[in-house]
């Protein structure tokens, strides 16, 4: 009897200990985190885990915080994670105070109702280029300030092209590009590498070709869309592009180009720094349209947003932080580090003066389109996913380009 009671008491004590550890441990942590739970600390999320606290960006964030009179707690995470985490956090009332998100995610977060309009906060977006701002504009209201923009173009390896007797200036449309690839392959080198992975990166890389054929995202299976997909399929089947484009991220595609075996690589502004380290002379041309001219390219880049908080008095400091991060001087520094194009004409001019190699990119960004612009908004994700699936199905040989895009259009219209 005595033993039983002792055992029972021990068990209850164990359970009690467990819960008290949880509660006690929690108590000592409450001062360090939680928006709204304590006055002085503001939560800041960004998708740059490669920049730690001692980096220029990390120091800038801290400084903007102290200038605004607050302590900033910065958390960086993988960019695909950030959108999901933001939704989860907002659901529990734990959203950060300032958040940098990749531009196609903005429409999803707006749909969830967790972002504030820049006009409501009194943020000035007048000097920002309209097409760059457009990616974060839903129903004529903008929901974030872009930190910078980037886009896609064709990098080429000068040595390989001259050895294959290809003049980069001759690459004006799809036919001339394919002809160039043929010549490169005949000279014993590899043609082109890009990313056709089954994530948003794949859609991002496919869009210049899709739009270059005159395709419309609301009609994926039009003849123009099929033409674009057939072009890629032709390259993969003909050996001008490697089969592993289906797994390539834009980074691994760049690593392939950096081996020095590939003539062309479809990649973005942010690779400029790596291009200089590549060890061979390189050049950049804009992606050709099907019948000539430059293909429309999609805008990339992150937006600085201010999620909705229960305590609206926090917006004063958040607004100051955002304004600090996006003032001209800081934009120049940040966009130089990230190798993005600045969103305002004034800072762009300064960038080009510092680094003339950025000139073609500035022009490309000026001609670029937002993925969620053109009234697509939250419809874009429901189109993008079937689109990258179609690309995968066609390039892997599972379906013909027409059949793949037909299936994609059916899935996209279901929403």
């Amino acid at each position, binding site marked *: 009897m*005595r*033993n*039983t009671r*002792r*055992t029972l008491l*021990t*068990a209850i004590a*164990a359970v009690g200990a467990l819960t008290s*550890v*949880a*509660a006690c*441990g*929690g*108590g000592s*942590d*409450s001062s*360090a*985190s*939680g928006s709204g739970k304590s006055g002085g600390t503001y*939560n800041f999320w960004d*998708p*740059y*885990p*490669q*920049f*730690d606290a001692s980096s220029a960006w990390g120091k800038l964030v801290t400084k903007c915080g102290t200038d605004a009179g607050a302590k900033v*707690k910065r*958390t960086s*995470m*993988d*960019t695909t*994670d950030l959108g999901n*985490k933001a939704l*989860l956090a907002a659901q*529990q009332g*734990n959203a950060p105070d300032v958040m940098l998100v*990749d531009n196609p995610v903005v429409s999803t977060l707006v749909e969830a109702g967790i972002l504030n309009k820049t006009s409501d906060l009194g943020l000035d977006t007048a000097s920002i280029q309209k097409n760059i701002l457009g990616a974060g504009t839903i129903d004529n209201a903008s929901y974030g300030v872009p930190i910078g923009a980037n886009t896609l173009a064709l990098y080429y390896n000068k040595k390989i092209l001259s050895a294959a007797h290809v003049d980069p200036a001759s690459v004006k449309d799809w036919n001339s590009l394919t002809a160039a690839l043929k010549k490169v392959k005949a000279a014993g080198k590899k043609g082109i590498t890009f990313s056709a992975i089954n994530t948003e990166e794949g859609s991002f890389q496919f869009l210049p070709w899709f739009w270059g054929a005159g395709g419309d995202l609301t009609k994926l299976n039009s003849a123009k869309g099929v033409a674009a997909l057939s072009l890629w399929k032709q390259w993969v089947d003909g050996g001008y592009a490697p089969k592993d484009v289906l797994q390539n*991220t*834009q*980074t*691994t595609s760049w*690593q*392939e180009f*950096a*081996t*020095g*075996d590939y003539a062309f690589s479809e990649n*973005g502004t*942010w*690779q400029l720094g*790596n291009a200089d380290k*590549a*060890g061979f002379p390189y050049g950049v041309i804009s992606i050709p349209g099907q019948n000539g001219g430059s293909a429309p390219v999609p805008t990339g880049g*992150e937006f600085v947003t201010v999620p909705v908080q229960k305590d609206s008095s926090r917006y004063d400091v958040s607004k100051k932080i955002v304004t600090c991060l996006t003032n001209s001087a800081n934009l120049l520094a940040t966009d130089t580090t990230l190798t993005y194009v600045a969103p305002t004409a004034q800072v762009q001019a300064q960038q080009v003066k510092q680094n003339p190699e950025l000139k073609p990119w500035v022009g490309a960004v000026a001609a670029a389109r937002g993925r969620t612009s053109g009234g697509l908004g939250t419809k874009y994700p429901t189109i993008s996913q079937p689109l990258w699936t179609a690309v995968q199905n066609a390039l892997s040989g599972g379906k013909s380009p027409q059949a793949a895009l037909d299936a994609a259009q059916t899935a996209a219209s279901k929403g």
Partner: protein
Amino acid sequence: MKSPKGKRRYTVIGVLLTALMLFPVYWMINVSITPQQDMRKTPPDLLPLHPTFEGYRAVLDDQMPYLGTSLLIGLGTVALTLVLAAPAGFALAKLRPLGGGALGLTLLVAQMIPGIVMAMGFYGIFLDLDLLNSWWGLIVADSTIAVPFGVMIFTAFMSGIPGELISAARIDGAGTWRTFRSVVLPVSRNAVVTVSLFSFLWAWSDFVFANTLDGGGSWRPITLGIYKYIGNNNQEWNAIMATAVVASIPAAVLLVLAQRYVAAGVTAGAVKD
């Protein structure tokens, strides 16, 4: 009686099999010292011809705190799992509580829930209990991976303990708790080591819980530390692989030490036939 030559044959085969099994690990080490521009070389270098140690330099500079946190979380998970699972396993094996069968089924179902479902559920609970972004909260979360399994292992091993051992203790006047502590546990050393091994390894390599529940904490495990090298637009593979190599070393040492105990029998010398 096996001749020494026969035994040597086994050793050779064993080494060959192990080498085959560990080839991907070798490849991982190979990648960790490959410079960035050779990452996608065709055909790949079987031996690292131009080794670079910048990955390891980055790891030694950045990752040591993460490794320490991982170790802490691993050991904490082992402790918590043993405390919860061993008594319960003993009860299910020997004490026959009411609803024992239902509990067995519940433990099975508990292991079927996908990790991401658990993590999403925990987010709310942890936020309310203020356990988010803390390493002790992560210990509690990681233990949910190991506890049901631990109970099953303890139940299985402890049902194999002969009843005479326990009755002998009872006759000597020991209560149930005393019996458990002084007789059952020492004899279940095999099971204790097995459960500790599993719970440590599962906690060590957990990513889902760490990412969802400790993403913003100041004490983060190594599985999150690796993501430092997976930025928005770049992935430093040699640093990532170097982190994995460095992260495997302490765990590998623990493994070699622990496997000696996993081999011991259950009732070694406790009951004479």
